[in-house]
């Protein structure tokens, strides 16, 4: 969708070749069909956000059940098996179905706006990523039919979010739970890699004129780094999952001890993915913070090149520290020392970011609005999580902390105090842009304080629990170990945190319908997304902006005449090219993803043995699903990458009659 391509556009008068009905482009602008066929990065981003927040609540309920079980010693809220399911699904859900897609929501919605693009590079691939993510989420959660509807042999995954072999083997987990987990993660991997490739191509190729790499907003930079991390790290887990699937279904022995397999191999493959994954969760958050702090300090980011470089540096080092999750696996002295030192090294670029955030605020005018509150909460909480992280890098001390509640405290400070706080800040920050309404300061700050207090009351005592020897993933504990009070306080805190999240969402939903309307650029923003009306029109930018400085919109606001003159020239040039080029909607990415869903369910929910009837279902559904995916991809390619042109009146509304101008420009 390159709007500056020098291709001759067909005009309306030209004969439009008759399309076969099957290939007619969907035209729905509202209703269910419009959502299933949308290729608009903003609508896709919104859907990512909605699904992510739904699963955030699901994961939250799972967490509350865990805390209810542990509130008192020898708790009886959950059975052992159900508790194990809860912590497995809580981890998997929060990482893959809440934080990652919520970050993806911002990548989708905000990143193209920040670089002055009208959409991502491959709009239909973007839709495919979204729906494949949904398919993966369904497969991952389909095992709940077991406990909820009493279907034998079907359980939600219960072998830990990290699925250590050989516990995941058919011998030790004979039901279907691990199969759902394997296939669910595989589909999520497909979705993540497709989306990441899309973002990389978009950021490299679709920047507005003048938007050099070193003028990119930091959030876009972190999107780019994160996308590279996903593309490079997911293959490791994909391979591991394929091997596990083969072990479980086809009798291979990658991890099967009796056949000479090596369970330790799983750990290496998993953490080669798993540690970069940690940065996949935190780098977008750092990007959001690096947008919010300058805006609300009314100053540019302190040391932009160093912040960008340290982000990339964290990304690189993230691939060199995976074995610090394995300090207790007997790696020997040299390997342990190497991974300990590499882990310490990663504290430097991370610390640099914190210094620069403080530097950004120093000498500024801090507007203590709700997004800023969450952002400052992030800096404080992330600092605490970072310091306990440094403690873990001291390998011998870590052998005491590993798999104890100290680790739970550490990574919740990083993932809630870090990632979630930043994402909640981002929702507040960009809400006026997305929906043209603003959350009330009182309710926003109230939800912040409840969340902040609840979070600390929940997780700070866990440091003490861990140091006092409480291992994680335990469904019960005896009252004579000194863990009662800290667990009780943590559970109370968890319910307060839950209340805070409930208030947060209630306020968001209220604001969506009834909130105070705001005009363009309510925060006095610095980056291009604030230069467009809210909610943003489908074409984003009436005229593709020309960028002159790092804080592009801040520059525009201070050089209005120069910008206005440039705009006039650019608008005329674009009109001469035939107007604003928009991609057609398409149902085929959705169809392709539906096929993957059928494969996902078919290949996991039935037995792989020849002497049981299930094998016909397994084979049949897998083939059917594969066929549906192929059909989707086939028509997706047949319908071509065409689009239509929009012509705008002076209010930015598309002129009637031109809206569905089926131009056949080959771009």
């Amino acid at each position, binding site marked *: 969708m390159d709007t500056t391509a020098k291709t001759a556009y067909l005009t309306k008068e030209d004969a439009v070749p008759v399309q076969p009905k099957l290939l007619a482009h969907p035209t729905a602008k509202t209703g269910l069909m419009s959502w299933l066929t949308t290729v608009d990065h903003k609508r896709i981003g919104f859907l990512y956000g909605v699904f992510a927040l739904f699963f955030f609540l699901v994961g939250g309920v799972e967490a509350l059940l865990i805390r209810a079980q542990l509130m008192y010693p020898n708790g009886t809220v959950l059975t052992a098996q159900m508790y194990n399911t809860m912590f497995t699904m809580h981890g998997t859900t929060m990482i893959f179905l809440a934080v990652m897609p919520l970050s993806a929501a911002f990548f989708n919605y905000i990143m193209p706006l920040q670089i002055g693009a009208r959409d991502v590079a491959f709009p239909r691939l973007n839709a495919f990523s979204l729906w494949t993510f949904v398919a993966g989420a369904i497969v991952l959660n389909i095992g709940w039919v077991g406990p909820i509807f009493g279907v034998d042999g079907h359980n939600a995954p219960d072998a830990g979010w990290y699925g250590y072999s050989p516990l995941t083997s058919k011998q030790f987990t004979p039901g279907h739970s691990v199969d759902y987990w394997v296939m669910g993660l595989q589909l999520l991997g497909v979705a993540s890699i497709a989306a990441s490739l899309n973002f990389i191509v978009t950021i490299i190729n679709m920047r507005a004129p003048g938007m050099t790499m070193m003028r990119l907003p930091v959030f876009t930079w972190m999107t780019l780094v994160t996308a590279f991390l996903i593309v490079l790290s997911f293959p490791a887990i994909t391979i591991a999952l394929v091997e596990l699937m083969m072990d479980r279904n086809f009798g291979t022995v990658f991890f099967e001890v009796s056949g000479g397999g090596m369970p330790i191999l799983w750990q290496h493959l998993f953490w080669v993915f798993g540690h970069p994954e940690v940065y996949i969760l935190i780098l977008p958050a750092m990007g959001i913070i690096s947008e919010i702090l300058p805006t609300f300090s009314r100053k540019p980011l302190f040391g932009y090149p160093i912040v960008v470089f340290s982000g990339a540096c964290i990304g690189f080092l993230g691939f060199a520290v995976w074995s610090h999750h394995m300090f207790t696996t007997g790696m020997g002295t040299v390997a342990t020392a190497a991974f300990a030192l590499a882990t310490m090294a990663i504290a430097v670029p991370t610390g640099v970011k914190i210094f620069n955030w403080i530097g950004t605020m120093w000498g500024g005018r801090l507007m203590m609005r709700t997004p800023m509150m969450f952002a400052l909460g992030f800096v404080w909480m992330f600092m605490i999580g970072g310091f306990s992280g440094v403690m873990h890098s001291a390998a011998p001390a870590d052998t*005491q902390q590993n798999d104890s509640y100290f680790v739970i405290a550490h990574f919740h400070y990083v993932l809630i105090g870090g990632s979630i706080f930043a994402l909640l800040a981002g929702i507040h920050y960009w809400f006026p842009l997305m929906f043209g309404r603003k959350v009330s300061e009182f309710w926003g700050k109230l939800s912040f304080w409840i969340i902040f207090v609840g979070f600390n009351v929940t997780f700070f005592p866990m440091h003490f629990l861990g*140091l006092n020897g409480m291992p994680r993933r335990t469904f019960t504990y005896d009252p004579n170990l000194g863990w009662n009070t800290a667990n009780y306080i943590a559970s109370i805190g968890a319910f307060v945190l839950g209340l805070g999240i409930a208030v947060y969402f209630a306020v968001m939903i209220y604001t969506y319908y009834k909130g105070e309307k705001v005009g363009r650029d309510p925060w006095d923003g610095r980056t291009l997304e604030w230069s467009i009306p809210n909610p943003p029109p489908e074409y984003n930018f009436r005229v593709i902006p020309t960028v002159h400085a790092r804080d592009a919109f801040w520059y525009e606001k201070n050089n209005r005449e120069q910008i206005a003159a440039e705009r006039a020239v650019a608008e005329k040039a674009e009109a001469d090219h035939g107007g604003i080029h928009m991609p057609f909607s398409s149902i085929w990415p959705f169809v392709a993803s539906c096929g993957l869903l059928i494969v996902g369910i078919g290949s996991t929910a039935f037995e792989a043995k020849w002497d049981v009837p299930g094998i016909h279902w397994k084979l049949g559904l897998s083939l059917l699903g594969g066929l549906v995916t192929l059909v989707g991809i086939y028509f997706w390619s047949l319908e071509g990458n065409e689009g239509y042109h929009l012509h705008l009146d002076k209010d930015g509304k598309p002129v009637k009659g031109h809206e569905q101008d089926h131009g056949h420009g080959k771009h």
Partner: protein
Amino acid sequence: MRLVPSFLVRAGQLLVAGASLLLLSGCDFNFWRMDGHQSTMIAEGPVARSQLNLFYVTCWVTLVIFILVGGVLAYTMWRFRARTEADERAEPPPQSHGNPLVEIGLIGASVLALVIIAVPTLTAIWYTYDVPEAEKKNAYEVTATGYQWWFKFEYPAEQAAVDAAGTKTPLVTGNELVIPAGRPVRINVRTVDVIHSFWVPKLGGKIDMIPNRANFFWLQADKPGYFWGQCAEYCGDSHAVMRFRVIALDEKDFAAWKEKQLGLARSVAAPATAVAAAAPVAALRAFKVNEVGVSEAFDRNPLEAWRAKQAVEKEENPALIAQGRELFAAKTCNACHSVRGHGAMGVQGPDLTHFGARTTVGAGLIENNPEQLRRWIRDPESVKPGNKMAKAYRDNKITLSDAEQVALTAYLLSLK
């Protein structure tokens, strides 16, 4: 602009304060002392001490940095905040972009701080890896093997009697590891099924038991003591209740214990004349799910409790014990458990040759007394979900009447 009247705010504050008082009353606020049985903050041996000292280094370094950075951050937030709306709308501050000297200085300072942590880390990695060269000769070796969900301890250097003919086998015990105090103990860790992890916090950090991997580590207890341990790697349904104990004894006590362990199981002579049928046995009370099976009395002096357990039970009933011994074979307990000298040679479950001298049942889970032991053999599934003994009961349709439970309990407790 206030959206909520101030009296409402005050009422809310009162409510929260009152509620927290109610919720927190009766709580023991000493948890910050971290002095539990499994505390990592109390080192009772050189390995744990080395790890704890390193922890303190990391703790102090990060605390100092936190106070410095946090102090600057707090000052920045206070000093530069907009105090009024007019302040917010004022002319923006100078649009400065950074200061390379400050950046480089801070990076240098961070690297220095990390060096302070790195040096003792490296020292401790090499120290905790294996028994120091000078003490290798003095080291005592045992092998710990993880099973779903219990631990087997093997003493490769000790040959135990299997039968009266003098056949020997390495000494094997279950769930309670007895070691000599003041001597380095080198522990080989193995597993027969999934990954487990061996962790006795007061003596040392954990080491994973991984299939196809010959891991080892070492620890040493400064002085005689009774230590709590637990599996630290999620290993399936009953991971939380896979626990164990370590008992460190001085040289003399250890030798005495070993002497006794090497012998055959204790046999109690059955009474010569048949006894009249005993009075009907009352059913054991019901237990709640996950009900506590340990007593405070035991915790007060666990080592003494362990010593007391070495002596013969006070009110033994030889007739009952004989009946229990027969049941042990009749109910096929011997298919999985060994009792050396009593003809039981099973290897899938813990060795029970001197079971009566142990302080716990079900892998360090509940106390080894008549009530708790009966609770375990009556319905192992309710104590430890998913365990193999419960599965064997189901597969082989094994049921135990109240009288049989009592007889088996008496027999097992007689195995001193």
